[in-house]
């Protein structure tokens, strides 16, 4: 295991981190959004749509490959459409769960099916063949390039901590900001109250529906960025449809980080470590049957965490107590 292994771990960890932060915000409001993998796919779909629009504006894939088109416009379009799509997914979830009072599990699973389907469907229409449409040029030029800082002498420190693209650092900044908002501000307090006991929050004058809507949509926006990051940064724009599994890891990660975005940074590193482990491990142990078992380790750890928090039953480490329950004011 060398530095490049850990660089790979940190690169993939960011996908989990975006998904996890988004889902933590959502779950804090009492919504167990099992649609997280779908929302991620929605984000990626949005990015694909944005990329296609950018390419059409700039005048074809070849022009983009040759360096035409302003990076600001490109990044703006991709991020904008990514956020719009992810936001729509979050809005749909909220509308079904809050306004139409559907079951959260069923709704979440439907959003996942829809997201995965739409991602493949629109992806295959807008980009039928790998990189015929200059997506990799967009990925390479605008997203996966490292920070524009020139290090005279690159050593292990710069490689391990400073060699990533902007979205990696943004994820960590978002994690810290969300941590502070949830733990230290009035908005965060109200949000947690809504997730713990919507009835009481409602009685004390908090607009429960608004909190749930805003939290879920903001959460979905962040989750969607994970999809954009995976497709155009981690994968440098070559179409790849295996986002769903990464989304489920993000859902598991929420439990591992006991609903705390600060811990999520550490947790996503641990999960990414096990996610990447089979590759170097296969060089040491010459048995292929081991690697699927190793890749279940994140889930096993999650189960152990789930059991542990239910044994100790400490208030601070529990899931939000109204998690998964639909709130209807007139039900008493």
């Amino acid at each position, binding site marked *: 295991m060398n530095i490049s292994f850990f660089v790979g771990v940190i690169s993939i960890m960011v996908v989990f981190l975006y998904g996890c932060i988004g889902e933590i915000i959502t779950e804090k409001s009492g919504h167990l959004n099992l649609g997280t993998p779908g929302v991620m796919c929605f984000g990626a779909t949005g990015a694909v749509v944005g990329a296609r629009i950018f390419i059409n504006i700039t005048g074809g894939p070849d022009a983009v490959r040759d360096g035409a088109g302003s990076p600001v416009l490109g990044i703006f379009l991709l991020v904008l459409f990514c956020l719009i799509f992810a936001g729509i997914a979050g809005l749909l979830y909220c509308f*079904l769960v809050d306004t139409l*009072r559907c079951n959260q599990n069923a*709704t979440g699973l439907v959003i996942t*099916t829809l997201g995965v389907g739409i991602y493949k469907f629109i992806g295959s*229409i807008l980009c039928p063949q790998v990189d015929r449409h200059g997506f990799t040029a967009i990925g390479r030029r605008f997203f996966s390039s490292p920070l524009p800082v020139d290090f005279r002498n690159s050593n292990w420190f710069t490689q391990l901590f400073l060699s990533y693209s902007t979205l990696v650092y943004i994820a960590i900044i978002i994690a810290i900001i969300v941590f502070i908002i949830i733990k230290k501000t009035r908005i965060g307090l109200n949000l947690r109250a809504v997730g713990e006991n919507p009835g009481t929050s409602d009685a004390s004058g908090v607009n429960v529906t608004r909190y749930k809507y805003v939290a879920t949509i903001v959460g979905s926006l962040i989750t969607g960025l994970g999809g954009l990051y995976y497709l155009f940064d981690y994968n440098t724009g070559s179409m790849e449809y295996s986002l769903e599994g990464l989304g489920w890891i993000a859902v598991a990660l929420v439990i591992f980080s006991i609903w705390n975005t600060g811990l999520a940074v550490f947790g996503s590193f641990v999960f990414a470590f096990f996610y990447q482990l089979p590759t170097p491990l296969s060089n040491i142990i010459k048995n292929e049957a081991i690697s699927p078992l190793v890749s279940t380790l994140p889930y096993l750890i999650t189960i152990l965490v*789930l059991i542990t928090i239910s044994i100790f039953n400490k208030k601070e480490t529990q899931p939000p107590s109204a998690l998964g329950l639909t709130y209807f004011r007139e039900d008493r």
Partner: protein
Amino acid sequence: MADKVAREKFIRISRRTDVKLWQRIVIIGASILFAFLLIGLISNIAAPGSFLRFYEYMFKGTFSTPRIFMTLLWNVGLMLLVAVALAPAFKMRFWNIGAEGQCLMGALGAVIGLYFIAPHVPTFLALIIEFLLAILFAAVWAAIPAIFKAFLNTNETLFTLMMNYMATGIVASFIIFNQTPGRSGTIDPLNSATKAGWMPQIQFFHNSYVYNIIIIALVAVVIWGYLRFSKHGYELSVVGGSQNTARYVGINVKKVIIRTIVLSGVVCGVVGFLLVAGGSHTISASIVSGRGFTAILVCWAGNFNVPMMLFYSFLITFVSSGSSTASSALPYSDAISEVATAVFFIIIIASTFFVNFNVHIPWLKKLIDKIKDLFKKKEKEAAQ
């Protein structure tokens, strides 16, 4: 201001309990029609002008020959059986999201029987052993989260969800460990020369799924009766209604939780057994192919009621395999079947709102009243 009037709400929603059967049928029928229309429109957007042809291909892919129709029935049966497995758990408000993993573990049990035992014993015995192994594996897999739920109140939704991926990993590892020599990561159908441990097949319209469908029907009827008429079925619905109530009337809640989920696992085990012994005679990590998740939607939409679940299983299998056939003739990808499934369920799930709730729109009512008044005035004027 002292004379501030309480602001009337823009829209008000109240729970309704007086839905008549015909109203329910109208709501469900309308939403199904709407869902089908929407799916056709999606197809039309992706391939302009394909609106009507899409439905034509849908029917072609599901009803055109007896053989295709029997395959449809087999898929309907599998979907129904997974949904039936989930019904007792859901009725108890135990959110078992782990049917995918439980079926997969059942399939693993059946494959172990098929691989290691079937070549050495008569087929009848082999089938029984496979069956028992399948339901044992699946029941244990379901029991683990249930025990933790019963004793420690561990969140079962997340626990069962994780168990799915554990199962996938274990099965993937098993496959690589026992892969057919020369193949990477697959096991060829086992015992295909001797057919040892295979479900007996009778030919019916060129189709070999007849016994499977009979078994599915039997299990579905048994579970339907269990939920509807047995004391166990009553107990689990009380636990689902309120655990405290159940405790006060002397129901052992822990026992009921574990018993019900083990039953849920056993039925998932039957699915695994049928997939292996009556279907592919081998295993792959994707053998359940998402039925565990879709069945959750079927079960929810069918309101834990077996005949309704059969209805939805049929519709959703028709939608997904029909649209999949359409995609092979029309210029878009196979993913339309996932999109169609999701759109279908979104509409169905959303429509339950109109079954369970009344919508009051005060301003609209006022508006209608005003218009009515206007008409009455005019009528009076005309009469005068």
